[in-house]
């Protein structure tokens, strides 16, 4: 039994209508068409995204396959490499010069006596006993890694850089020169890995200064390694990045965004011989401001799949490197050093993203994609400089403004 007053309202309003807004029907039809199209797109899109994501991951893993801890220190002068290197160049290297610093000279003259002019330092250098020539038989097959160079540069007789490349190359065509600071490398799980004979470049640079055994741990290690094969292994891990994004929709499916990101870059390295080596670990902190444009491929009630392209400007806001020096496998000393990278880091990126909306304005997103980091001439090596073209995964919170 409905109350009287209630019934009055019902009776009054039951036939009431207000004309619907103009063009609403067309808008409704647009949405319906859009949905039909989307339904078809999703059927293709989901397997498409899955396939391309799998392909990217597979490609990255493949390219980084060289990085496993089991890489043994090997003499890179395998038969393969030897074939391509004229004997004239090889010989001086095999007959290692007696002076410590000579090991790290970059130029090798054709006939092979150490070029005295290239010796760093003068009379203060230490003269060490003649080392044993590494036997030809000691060559093992190097496990082929895509990162290691197999062909020497064509005009190796030319610049020191090229010759350096023969024996110490990291496998990239364009080698970026670094001038100071200890390069830190890391091998293993994705990112960038490199192995090569000889010490790391940084050790090499450091040893250009005269030092005596007993001066510091590094000189000790190098002396102890005089009769041993040395190698360097580097690993730059993919950055871990988190951020906050702000996006503005300026058309139905297009949005522009910016935000703030924090990236954590880890690199690890080991240089030396099996017994005497230096273990280092470098961490860099980057803060960045991205700028991008996104296109909504598909939207549902709380989800959004989109494609994005844009760039980012980052600045290193801090970092450090820690080095452990090992004699005969036992830790002798450690040190840490603060690092900073002065130049700004520019990059470009393209990605696909999935966003889950918590509220109308706030959402969580995951964006796998590819990024290219521009060379900024920085002294310090990191995944940005060693593997500029790389896979990336950004996670974060997005604030959306319509």
């Amino acid at each position, binding site marked *: 039994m*409905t*109350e*009287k*007053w*209630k019934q*009055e*309202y*019902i009776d*009054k*309003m039951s*036939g*009431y*209508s*207000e*004309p*619907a*807004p103009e063009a*609403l*029907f067309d*808008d*409704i*039809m647009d*949405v*319906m068409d859009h*949905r039909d199209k989307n339904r078809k797109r999703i059927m293709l899109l989901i397997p498409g995204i899955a396939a391309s994501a799998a392909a990217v991951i597979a490609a990255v893993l493949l390219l980084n396959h060289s990085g496993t801890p089991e890489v043994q220190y090997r003499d890179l002068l395998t038969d393969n490499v030897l074939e391509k290197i004229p004997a004239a160049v090889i010989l001086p290297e095999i007959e290692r010069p007696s002076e410590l610093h000579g090991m790290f000279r970059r130029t090798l003259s054709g006939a092979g006596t150490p070029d005295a002019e290239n010796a760093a330092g003068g009379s203060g250098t230490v003269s060490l006993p003649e080392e044993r020539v590494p036997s030809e038989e000691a060559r093992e097959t190097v496990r082929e890694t895509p990162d290691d160079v197999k062909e020497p540069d064509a005009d190796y007789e030319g610049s020191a850089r090229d010759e350096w490349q023969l024996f110490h190359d990291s496998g990239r065509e364009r080698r970026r020169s670094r001038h100071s600071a200890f390069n830190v490398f890391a091998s293993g799980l994705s990112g960038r890995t490199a192995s090569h004979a000889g010490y790391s470049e940084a050790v090499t640079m450091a040893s250009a200064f005269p030092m005596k055994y007993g001066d510091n741990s590094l000189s000790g290690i190098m002396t102890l390694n005089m009769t041993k094969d040395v190698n360097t292994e580097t690993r730059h891990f993919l950055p871990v990045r988190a951020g906050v994004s702000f996006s503005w929709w300026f058309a139905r499916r297009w949005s522009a965004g910016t935000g703030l990101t924090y990236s954590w870059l880890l690199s690890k390295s080991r240089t030396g011989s099996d017994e005497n080596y230096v273990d280092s670990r470098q961490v860099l902190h980057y803060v960045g401001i991205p700028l991008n444009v996104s296109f909504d491929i598909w939207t549902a009630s709380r989800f959004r799949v989109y494609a994005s392209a844009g760039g980012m400007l980052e600045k290193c806001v801090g970092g450090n490197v820690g080095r452990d020096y090992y004699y005969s496998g036992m830790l002798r000393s450690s040190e840490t050093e603060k690092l900073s990278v002065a130049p700004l880091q520019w990059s470009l990126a393209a990605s696909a993203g999935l966003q889950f909306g918590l*509220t*109308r304005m706030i959402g969580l997103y995951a964006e796998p994609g590819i990024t290219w980091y521009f060379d900024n001439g920085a002294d310090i090596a990191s995944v940005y400089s060693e593997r500029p073209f790389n896979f990336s995964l950004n996670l974060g919170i997005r604030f959306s403004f319509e």
Partner: protein
Amino acid sequence: MPGIPEQILAERLGRGDRQAMKYLYGLYAGYLNAVCSRYIPDREAAKDVLQDSFVRIFSSAGTFRYRGEGSLKAWMKKIVVNGALKYLQKSSRNCFVTGLDNFQDIPDDGFDEDYGMNAVSPAVIQEMIRKLPDGYRTIFNLYVFEDKSHKEIAKILNIKENSSASQLHRAKALLAKWIREYLKEKEAEL
């Protein structure tokens, strides 16, 4: 397409017949718009909800089972009301629990009196309902036009049953007050 029976219309909609959609729209858009704006005073938001509701109606017409005359209209209305409630819940200004009692001066008596609604046009009543504070308005709409009990309203809006009752009481009182004032003004104009 003159006078298509609801049943046939429903069937055609289920098959995605665009002509049928246009016809249905022409027939009921005005009514559903009024329902929607009775819940949502913001015109833009009401338009969005109405659009979403129609899309839902057209998309899910395949699931509608004709159950007699008026069932199509009722089904559509239900979709619109649900859409409006969803929007209201999301909208931050919405507060179903009104702690303050701003209307203590409203007399307790006279609610069942005939307060002369006959003389007031539906458009004016609609505007009055839209003017109600958010919580009152929603509860009033659900109680009066969707015939929900306070128990059901409490469940839908996630409030206490007696909160629903007291808010309805105040909504009624406010409307009654406004109607009286309106009628007095109209009388004065004459």
